[in-house]
């Protein structure tokens, strides 16, 4: 029985209770934890010890890639591969090259933001053990859930269950693998 469990999950009624419980869980030494809520909760990041995401850095480099791509594409086309005199303008009319390079910067930065976020989040992922808890459907509506994974170092079925019940949740569920 123990082996098959993915972890234990507690249901709470309000965001405040969830944040307090998350804080207590972290103080108790649990690290492989997660919280689920119907809207983003600012205070939970600090309570659970979620590190600042690397995403902004990725997006910055995504944008730089787009910029360089835009510049090199236009320089290649109009200066190296096929120089063509248009209206007497110089082959390297950099002022005219700004708009496409700018748009490519934004395009690649945007791609990085969205696909980077999805990638770091491990999405799409249609199946996840937490969906095995029937009440979990309410996590996208009005209820708040706290999960302690069985992979946590100090996880022990009885202790952890007792600990979670001590946090005064609505209910504690076993999450099957």
């Amino acid at each position, binding site marked *: 029985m123990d082996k098959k469990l993915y972890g234990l999950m507690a249901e709470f009624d309000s965001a*405040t209770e969830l944040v307090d419980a998350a804080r207590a869980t972290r103080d108790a030494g649990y690290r492989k934890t997660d919280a689920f809520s119907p809207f983003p909760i*600012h205070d939970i990041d600090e309570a659970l010890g979620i590190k600042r995401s690397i995403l902004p850095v990725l997006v910055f480099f995504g944008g730089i890639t787009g910029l360089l791509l835009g510049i090199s594409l236009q320089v290649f086309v109009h200066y190296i591969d096929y120089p063509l005199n248009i209206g007497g303008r110089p082959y390297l009319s950099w002022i005219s090259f700004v708009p496409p390079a700018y748009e490519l910067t934004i395009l690649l930065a945007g791609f990085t933001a969205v696909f980077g976020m999805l990638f770091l989040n491990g999405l799409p992922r249609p199946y996840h053990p937490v969906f095995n808890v029937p009440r979990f459907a309410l996590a996208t509506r009005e209820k708040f859930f706290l999960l302690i994974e069985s992979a946590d170092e100090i996880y022990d079925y009885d202790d952890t269950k007792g600990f979670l019940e001590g946090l005064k949740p609505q209910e504690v569920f076993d999450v099957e693998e």
Partner: protein
Amino acid sequence: MAKDLKQIHEKIYPPMVEGEHTLATVSDKIGDVTLKKKTPWHWFVGFGISFMVAQLLLFSVVTLLAKGIGIWGNNQPVGWAFDIINFVWWIGIGHAGTLISAILLLLNQKWRTSINRFAEAMTLFAVACAAMFPLLHTGRPWLAAYWLFPYPNTMGIWPQFRSPLIWDVFAVSTYATISLLFWYVGLIPDLATLRDRAKNKVFKFFYAALSWGWRGSARHWHRYEIAYLLLAGISTPLVLSVHSIVSFDFSVSQVPGWHATIFPPYFVAGAIFAGFAMVLILCIPLRVWYNMKDFITDTHLVYMGKVMLATGLIVVYGYAMEAYFGWYSSSQYEVFMVKNRIWEGPYWWSYWLLIICNGLSIQLLWFKRFRESPFWLFMISIVVSIGMWLERFVIIVTSLNRDFLPSSWAMYSPTMFDWSMFVGTIGFFFTLLYLFVRFLPVISIFEVRTLLPEANVHGHQQDFEENVLEVEYTYERTDPPNKEDAES
């Protein structure tokens, strides 16, 4: 004292969700529009009409491909007419969506929360309509790939990057892509809500597939907010650049009346102006039909009216500066253009109609009586939409029909196909909107949740805009917090 202050605050900034709502009722009310079994009769009527009108588009496009663009009224010297007018008109309408979702987010304006979703949808559909016109103007769109996109082809030629039309290709395709991503990212948590609430198997599968297994994990939310902030940050310069580049289509040329340095900001303001008019046209009936007045309150309408007034005034400033500098320049071409456009030319009436629609009608918005009446807002919005269409007509037709060589002057008049194609895109636009209203949540459910009294932690409201703006600061310590900190 404190209570007295609170009353003053609420008088000046009314709350953005009216009525007694909880997390559950918000989810149900907005979700039920799509999940409830019975589709209202007016949906079928509206969708039916839109779909029929959209057939005009199909008819026009097929005829165009068969016969060529000679079926349009374009001639020499008016080589650009309805195609570019409609393109600019549609793409302008799209801008309000991005403005609401990105710029108002960065400005921490809470009233964006309940209108951003369908405004973004409107953006996508408007851009889809817009993109059709330049593509079809090529006459043979299947060849347009190598004219427009830089890829090594067998002819060894490349697009011309000094041309604003190529800038347009980059700007519009980037805009369409980023808007789609922004909209979709915003939808993911709401699709998960619908997935978990859907009873019908087919619907459940549909939403489950689209929501990509979103489960509301705190770690996911954290990255989600960062991605949202970054998208807003890059969409803001994007939306400014798109209509600026559209304005470059005209202004980098040498045609008097087109070649004006004020074009970029003035076009951007005009785009937002037209876009807000369209948002108002859509949301005033929507909130009545779907009983959403609690979320799209009268205050929302007032704010949109104010934005319309402000952007409209910038547009009028543009007209004033064009006329003033036309005269000030003392250049014979500029002076002729001003005279020709305003009173001497054959299209003088279109200019004055434009001034009435865009310049005079919005002056009513200075008055509370009009600003606070949905009826008047709706009427003004319709007039403004017509006015913004006329603006492009005036800019394009009056500048071209009398160019530098009097012997080639000619009048322009649209043909039946010009009209049928334009009207057809309107039908197409509303068809897509009706489908959107039926199958996807029209208001961002999870964002509205953050405005509710329930969404606070120890008195700290989990306001979406504010949290997104502060998201980089969510975590400053890597050690577990100690007890004293947790208490405070």
